[in-house]
């Protein structure tokens, strides 16, 4: 949800809760693409072979990519 600026006391008196919730709801508008947060992608094995050679060592470029992302 958005931390929405309402206004002064008069604005709050006039405010309808359902309208406020509609304005503040972001999930449907800004869902973006699905992106795992909890490392579930590792369990599914999507990154198991990413950037590795036959011996299983990680390439230098792949390390750099991993470090550059937050």
């Amino acid at each position: 949800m958005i931390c929405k600026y309402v206004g002064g006391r008069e604005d709050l008196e006039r405010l309808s809760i359902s309208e406020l919730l509609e304005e503040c709801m972001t999930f449907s508008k800004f869902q973006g693409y699905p992106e795992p947060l909890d490392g579930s992608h590792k369990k599914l094995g999507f990154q198991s072979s990413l950037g590795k050679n036959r011996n299983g060592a990680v390439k230098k470029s792949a390390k750099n990519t991993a470090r550059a992302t937050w």
Partner: protein
Amino acid sequence: MLSPSGIASFYIDSPLKIPNLWKLSRRHFRVMLSDGRFVKLNKFVNRLSIRDLQFYCWKLKPLHVYFSVLNWLFPERVGKKYKARYCVPLNGEYVVDVDSYMMLFKHEHKLDPEWHVCQECLDISKRLTLQVCEVIENYYSKLAIVFSGRLGFHVHVLDFHYKDWTKYRQEKPIWCHQTARFKFTRLLQKQTFVFDKAHFIVSVDPMRIVTVPNTLNGKKG
């Protein structure tokens, strides 16, 4: 919880609009990231403008964006409280956090399937906020109310001044702000129902940070 891409698209798709009531360049900003880190934005840029804030929100994809209640001469130096006088506090607003659970009337929680929020709880918060505003208006006139993004409201008293409540002490500037806030909070506590121990302590604290209006509460979705 919103996905990082959802947070990034929120900040890039809609321009961040913060009313001119707040002087952002004097504020100290912090963001909470999805991995639990608490990052100072002023370490990247000393004085943040609204464009800088939007850029860092897009880049870091924070769950929460906070700013200090005090204005600082050197916001980039703000850190520990015992060193805070070297950052030179100027003045700042007083903020009351109103949550519905402070005075919960008996009702059945009806979580809306679309919003996952009990509207009755929010309505209680609204009534409590109006009561607080009425009391505060006996002392100050410039109020700004912000929906917290969860189950309550923040009341910003913008014309609060510590000199209304205490004298200035050059060697202890933080103490002046704290004393003024303590006196005003104690006065409000007697007339309202919105202060428990935790709310009292944070309201008195001059180092407090609050959510920046019109930013995202990514935890709630």
